[in-house]
């Protein structure tokens, strides 16, 4: 298990605080009852409500009271499974009945909570491998319209054969590099479609009888290895122009996707050296794409178990592991400790080149309120986190400008 040792002292944290006053960005990644497989069995976990709007709306509202930049919604196009212990083989769904199984479509969950929130970014996970970029582009554009500029997406790939069998289009799985290349094409199509309407394409010119200026609608004419898309979108350009695209940078195969296609890359925050190496690799890849001038956030990705102190958190994790019947090994970085210790760690770890973190509550019912009510005030006391929402859009919260439209005619030079 890759649990962090409790961060050393609060003295080291204050050094970072004074050295670096740039605001920290924070999102939470939500999945079921929490990241730990036994999370649903905890008091307050509400496992019977996981498929209700009420549940998700409550979590988004809680995240918004904590002034977080965004909440993300995990998703996949297959039933959850624990690796390697399925009766149908390592690639098939397992036969477990003691864990949360089933999930709602993340884009729709994000849309369902959008009218009930006002400031927080909404970032659903989307699988590029089996979806149509045309559909995804208009869905995220629409999420941006209904949330008035708070949409993002977390693009992911899937090489699982059992997932491919849900679609039946592909005979064999793609290589990992090819999956990521396809996802990069997917994002390229999505982005071109967002720009395929200029902002002022709708003119409603009664004098000439024209509703739109067709010169401000653009064919995207994308040709790639796995699909071609003509365009334009059917959905007008979203409020943010370009909603915020993110992807996980977890291993070489994914770095090019993060570098070429995203506004936010999510890097496992295992430790300073590993994080630094990943950040450096992604930055190098970004240079190679020629996009280095455009901002790219890199966020540390970290599962958290927060309690009054480190022993209490460790004891809780132990109890959860006992319920699950095996030690937690979610694959990512894990923190156990107090909110103060987590604040220390975040400030220390961001020196590896991170501008923020996406935290995965181990038990949402416990750790999400610990983030919003304990960690956030701690960070505010240290002067590194907002005390009020300062922007209306997700791009605004992340300090990203609204990008110019790639197709708009530039004024004559």
């Amino acid at each position, binding site marked *: 298990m890759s649990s962090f040792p409790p961060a050393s002292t609060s003295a080291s944290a204050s050094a970072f605080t004074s050295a670096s006053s740039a605001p920290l960005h924070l999102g939470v990644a939500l999945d079921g009852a929490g990241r730990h497989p036994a999370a649903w*069995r905890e008091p307050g976990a509400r*496992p019977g409500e*996981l*498929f*209700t*709007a009420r549940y998700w*709306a409550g979590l988004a509202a809680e995240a918004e009271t904590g002034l977080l930049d965004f909440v993300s919604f995990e998703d996949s*196009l*297959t*039933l959850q499974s624990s690796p390697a212990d399925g009766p149908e083989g390592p690639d098939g769904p397992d*036969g477990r*009945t*003691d*864990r949360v*199984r*089933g*999930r*709602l*479509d993340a*884009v*729709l*969950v994000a*849309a*369902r909570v959008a*009218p009930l929130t006002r400031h927080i970014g909404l970032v659903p996970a989307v699988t590029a491998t*089996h*979806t*149509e970029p*045309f*559909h995804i582009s*208009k869905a995220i554009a*629409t*999420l941006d*319209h*209904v949330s*008035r500029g708070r949409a993002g997406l977390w693009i992911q790939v899937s090489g699982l054969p*059992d997932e491919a*069998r*849900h*679609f*039946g*289009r592909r005979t064999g799985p793609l290589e990992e590099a090819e999956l990521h290349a396809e996802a990069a094409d997917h994002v390229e199509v999505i982005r071109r479609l967002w720009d395929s*309407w200029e902002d002022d394409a*709708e003119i*409603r010119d009664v004098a000439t*009888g024209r*509703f*739109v*200026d*067709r010169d401000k609608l653009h064919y995207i004419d994308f040709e790639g290895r*796995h*699909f*071609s*898309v*003509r*365009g*334009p979108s*059917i*959905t*007008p350009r979203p409020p943010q122009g370009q909603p915020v695209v993110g992807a996980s940078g977890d291993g070489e195969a994914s770095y090019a996707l993060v570098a070429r296609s995203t506004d936010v890359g999510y890097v496992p925050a295992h430790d300073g050296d590993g994080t630094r190496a990943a950040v450096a690799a992604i930055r190098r890849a970004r240079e190679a794409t020629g996009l280095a001038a455009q901002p790219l956030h890199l966020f540390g990705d970290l599962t958290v178990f927060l309690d009054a102190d480190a022993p209490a958190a460790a004891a809780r994790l132990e109890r959860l592991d006992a319920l699950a019947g095996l030690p937690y090994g979610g694959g990512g970085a894990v923190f156990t400790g107090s909110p103060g210790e987590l604040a220390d760690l975040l400030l220390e770890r961001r020196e590896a080149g991170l501008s923020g973190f996406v935290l995965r509550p181990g038990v949402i019912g416990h750790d999400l309120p610990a983030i919003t009510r304990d960690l956030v005030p701690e960070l505010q006391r240290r002067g590194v986190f907002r005390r009020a929402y300062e922007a209306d859009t997700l791009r605004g919260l992340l300090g990203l400008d609204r990008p110019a439209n790639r197709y708009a005619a530039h004024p004559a030079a």
Partner: protein
Amino acid sequence: MTSKPLKQIHLAAHFPGVNNTTVWSDPAAGSHIDFDSFVHFARTAERARFDFLFLAEGLRLREQGGQIYDLDVVGRPDTFTVLAALAAVTERLGLTGTINSTFNEPYEVARQFATLDHLSEGRAAWNVVTSWDAFTGENFRRGGFLPREERYSRAKEFLETANGLFDSWNGTEIAADPGAGVFLRDARAGAFAHRGQHFDIEGRFNVPRSPQGRPVIFQAGDSDEGREFAASSADAIFGRDGTLEAGRAFYADVKGRLAKYGRTHDELKILPAATFVLGDTDAEAHEIAHEVRRRQVSGQTAIKFLEHVWNRDLSAYDPDGPLPDIDPEVGENTVALGRASVRQFRDPLETARQWRRLAEAKNLSIRELVISTTADQTFVGSAATVAEQIDTLVQADAADGFILVPHITPGGLDDFADTVVPLLQERGVFRTEYAGTTLRDHLGLDVPRPASGRQTVAS
């Protein structure tokens, strides 16, 4: 009194969309994209106790003469995403969306509808449409891969496959019992397999059974195949039109097909789309209707419409002058792309001859001809007259209700809700309060039982 009980009318509202029905030049016309417009429209429909709101879909901007068509409202948001957001601002209103079965895959669509049904607590409905159109296909991975004659076979199998996925959970699997450590009672929850001509898929569906079991299924289409598809597989069909004789014939025909599928008369609702114009008096309503028609069919719009039949550039013609004396261009290439109406003129030469005769006999200009031959307003009059017209048609079995298509976004339903609905309620033919919570409740449809067994294999 020995008369049979009055039929209860079903009413729905079609969000004014991308065609020349929607008058964008009116000062009252608002945004068709801004979410506030959808909220206003949906809340009006719910305040009026309508059964559902309906959203159409389009997957490619229309073109005519090689250019994007710019005279009508164009652009719309994603159907699923808007409906999910509307579920947050309404409580009872059904949420119906058109989703194309050609440029989607069953697993993903079934997942989205099951999710929408969960997120709306049982208010989701799917208008299943199909396309063979290579023009639209240019926006998708598979392109225009479907031979035209396979449209309904794919749609039917798509729906069968989706039903198999909806039924892969029977609704009793989730225990969520923390003490016992049992989340699933059944380790095989969601298992499915479908092997057919169009789909060969298997695995585990990952959305548990939703409140309605399956979304309510709508179907639109007037062909023999379309009627058969509806009779076998749909819960509701968009009827042919709102007139008495044609409506009754269609109603009798489609309902008559139900028995061979083991279905009863009430298991398929017939809901034609209908437009309306209200005035304080009938005379005023007819005046307004005339003006609305002139706004819907501008001179340019009339020329563009005529090009659908003539299939050639007619931009040099005067819309206030006579019809062209040249003949339509007959061939494979079409001037207008992405418009369903183009396909209705199967014999353009004959259509042109008829229209010329009509125009000469009545001394109609191009614009006047188009206004008189394209669909007129269904219901025109005072609120009392319109309430009477609607009730008469429903009681006469020309329809079970109507899907109203206002011509103004988003306020086009307001007057209807305020004036016609109370009159229908007074007549005792329309609910004053929702009796149930789900769309199936509103439509009087049972929740389908999951098909027995998990394996669905198409023959």
